[in-house]
């Protein structure tokens, strides 16, 4: 057994950490306050090959493994969740379906732009009445004269409406109880995108409602075969969970870093609050849980890279780090006292950015359901 990261993984961590500190940290508060999508940062991340880490180089990606990807997402989230989810949703939800299930032609058409980060992609699964029960999709697509004509709507879709979004892959009913995935290019007549949704956190990330009215896409935009949509999105979510779990570790680490620095600096009763056992124990608990959470995420990533079953560990990692990040931001803000409640202290943003990690790509309850199923229950 060897728990050391390879020198490449170390260097990826070091590079993304530096990038996040030098390029993202100075603007994170402003992007959040202005609800501004980080176009410039996305372009810089694209130049570094970080917008398509696990996609092979032949398709314009970085040719990295899942562990590299998880480490990069972790380090981004440590500084800013909006930027991290933009990369993660684009990679795991937007690009991955086309890479995994697309025909060679679809891959050639889309992947070079997406994996290089010149364009973004989204994945539209959730509907107003189909959330945790994602299979209950009501959006329909019917084949007419060589075109799929789509009617329906999606909600909470990340990266769907940026100026550089190329397409969204949506789930739709293509027959009774038959769910299929379709690629819908942005700009297709009948495909309308709402304004940005206003939200508690992830404020610099793009979240939209989509509506499809008599929206026709070529028959060839079907992803994989008819009726495989359900199986496909489950597989997409299994992989996506590793990146959301990496966000949980990164966010908890970021919250811990802030609490640690603040506790050493802040004095009350004539000494740094870090000398009080109550504060020390919180930091000790956070550091301990971080080790456990990170190990779980890396194990899930490692299993995937080995080509072994990883869905159980991915769900466990997402569940554990989602809840861990909740405790971490809560304790970190507590250690900050009233200052932590103020916008100018980064922990207030981290606190708001946390909750979604226990909801998106399957709520905590859904993770427990998935894990229970793996336990044979």
């Amino acid at each position, binding site marked *: 057994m060897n728990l050391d990261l390879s020198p490449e993984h170390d*260097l990826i961590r070091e590079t993304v950490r530096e*990038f996040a500190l030098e390029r993202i940290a100075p603007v994170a508060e402003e992007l959040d306050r202005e609800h501004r999508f980080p176009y410039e940062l996305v372009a810089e991340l694209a130049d570094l090959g970080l917008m398509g880490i696990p996609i092979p180089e032949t398709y314009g990606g*970085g040719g990295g493994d899942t562990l590299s990807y998880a480490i990069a997402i972790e380090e981004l989230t440590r500084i800013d969740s909006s930027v991290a989810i933009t990369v993660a949703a684009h990679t795991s939800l937007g690009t991955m379906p086309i890479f995994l299930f697309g025909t060679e032609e679809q891959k050639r058409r889309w992947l070079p732009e997406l994996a290089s980060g010149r364009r973004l992609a989204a994945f539209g699964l959730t509907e107003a009445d189909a959330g945790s029960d994602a299979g209950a999709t009501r959006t329909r697509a019917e084949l007419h004269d060589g075109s799929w004509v789509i009617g329906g709507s999606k909600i909470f879709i990340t990266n769907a409406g940026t100026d550089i979004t190329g397409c969204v892959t949506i789930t739709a009913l293509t027959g009774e109880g038959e769910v299929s995935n379709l690629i819908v290019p942005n700009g297709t007549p009948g495909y309308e995108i709402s304004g940005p949704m206003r939200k508690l956190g992830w404020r610099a990330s793009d979240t939209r409602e989509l509506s499809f009215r008599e929206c026709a896409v070529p028959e060839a935009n079907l992803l994989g075969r008819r009726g495989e949509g359900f199986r496909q999105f489950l597989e997409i979510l299994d992989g996506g969970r590793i990146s959301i779990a990496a966000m949980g570790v990164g966010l908890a680490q970021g919250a811990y870093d802030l609490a640690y620095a603040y506790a050493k600096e802040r004095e009350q009763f004539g000494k740094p609050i870090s000398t009080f056992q109550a504060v020390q124990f919180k930091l000790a608990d956070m550091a301990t849980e971080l080790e456990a959470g990170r190990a779980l995420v890396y194990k899930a990533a490692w299993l995937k890279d080995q080509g072994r079953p990883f869905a159980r560990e991915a769900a466990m990692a997402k569940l554990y780090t989602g809840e861990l990040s909740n405790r971490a931001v809560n304790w970190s803000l507590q250690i900050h006292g009233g200052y932590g409640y103020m916008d100018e202290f980064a922990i207030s943003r981290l606190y708001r950015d946390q909750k979604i990690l226990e909801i998106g790509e399957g709520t905590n309850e859904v993770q427990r359901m998935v894990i229970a199923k793996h336990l044979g229950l």
Partner: protein
Amino acid sequence: MKIAVCVKQVPDAAAPRRLDPQTKRLDRSGEGVLNAFDVHAVEEALRLKEAAGGGEVLLVTMAPEGAQDTLRKALAMGADRALLISDEAAAGSDLVATSYALAKALEREEPDLVLFGQQASDSDGAVLWAAVADRLRLPTISQVAELSLAEGRVRGKRQTEFGYDVIEAPLPAVVAVSDAINEPRYPSLKGIMSAKSKPQELVSLTALGVEPDRAGDQGSRTEVYALGDPPARGDSQKISDDGSGAEQIVAFLVERRLV
């Protein structure tokens, strides 16, 4: 165009540093990083190579074997290969011994241009480039904040207290760069992945023709006699900010004619 960049592995500035009272040397057992000035030198070499449309950027360092991981960053940025002078006999080398070994390696490689970061964050000697240039009998320009090459000559702009010196020298030459010269790139993912397969050659001192009595402690002409803590800071004054903190600081500075 072959550009050699001499780089050094230094202890991570973020980690606490320690002097070993026994050997009187800096404790280098912790994580090593690439000296920050050297990262600027690597960046400049890559830019020169890119501007020339080709060539080779070679890293040269004298360090223990573990330095390969540190060199990887510079290789990931785009350097083509690395030469690591690694030899137990090199331990304890001072400026005289280090410059001799580096000069021997550079003699073997015959680069058109040798770049250095102007100083290292651990020892802050800021003279190694001069010593190497002297051994190679090459012209040298230091503190360079802007660099260009044309027609077999190197031109450097050196920042001084009052303005700039512009200095030219024929190639080959040795140039020490300041950190104002450029904004180093981040290694790209592709660069990181390909660094693994770039050649890193390990050479011993003997292989370079460095005589045993000219390396390490034996080849060094300086000796550290004593280590001491820096003197405790004297008459310091702590200003707590009760709203007038800024005024108090200004008054303090004015009183000492510092502003």
